[in-house]
């Protein structure tokens, strides 16, 4: 099964990279862009894991390894069964 984990800065943490991208888009005339935040995405292929197991495994990997809870938050979803 395949899961997708999105990691991004907490709202309380400044995202200068996102701001730079937003500014670049503005310069190019994409004025509709109000706000932009940049994060990381991990697409993970898991073998021999069912939904129930994933519910336990993925949050553990995400909070222990993939995200730093001081500055980052994550969400995840199953994208392929």
């Amino acid at each position, binding site marked *: 099964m395949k899961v997708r984990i999105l990691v991004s800065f907490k709202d*309380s*943490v*400044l995202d*200068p*990279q996102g701001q*730079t991208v937003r500014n670049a888009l503005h310069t190019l005339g994409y004025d509709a862009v109000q706000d932009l935040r940049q994060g990381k995405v991990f697409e993970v292929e898991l073998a021999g894991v069912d939904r129930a197991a994933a519910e336990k495994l993925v949050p553990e990997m995400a909070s222990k*390894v*993939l995200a*730093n809870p*001081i*500055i980052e938050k994550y969400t995840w979803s199953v994208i392929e069964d």
Partner: protein
Amino acid sequence: MKIGVVLFPGSNCDFDTIHAFKEVLGKPTVPLWHKDHDLQGVDAVILPGGFSYGDYLRSGAIARFSPLMQEVREFAAKGRPVLGICNGFQVLLELELLPGAMLRNKNLKFLCRHVSIKVENEKTRFTRKARKGQVLNIPIAHFDGNYYAPPETLKAIEDGGQVAFRYCEPDGSLSEASNVNGSLHSIAGLINKAGNVCGLMPHPERASEKILGSEDGRFILESLVESL
């Protein structure tokens, strides 16, 4: 006395650090392999600069899981000295041996230059050879040195005298310009509550010989050596 420098895959200031302790200060210094579970009886552990595991996930994030880190945690818990330089500082943050986290430098670029840092707490075993407020000229070289901690943590750090070094102007004053990477409160180096774990972004090993332009890094390295 024996000093140990941890070699992670991707460390690149490991041998510079060994050179500084061994050749410049003349102290027995050994490399410690990250896959081992053996601190070889050293009296101080140094986590050197570099790009452990390429810094691919986050700076220092993967190195934290190295086998040897188990021993380093125990060593630190016993109150023995651990010094993290640059990437080593980042590893200490990821290990939660020091509070907070690192963000990208404020200009979103890698930054290599000499900076002025001010000794904020001169009573530690890493700073005792310097005076309070003394300004040291030491180079930095990093991409993620923009120190961050949530407000409560930051307050505790300040109240507890845990700020070891701050970026400053050559005269010791603080300014936005001298805070080269955008760190909160211009923090360049921290110490834990117990006073035995220290992390800093500047590279004292690059400022320990006259031929390299500055010897100010020796205040830090010699403080540690003297405390052993």
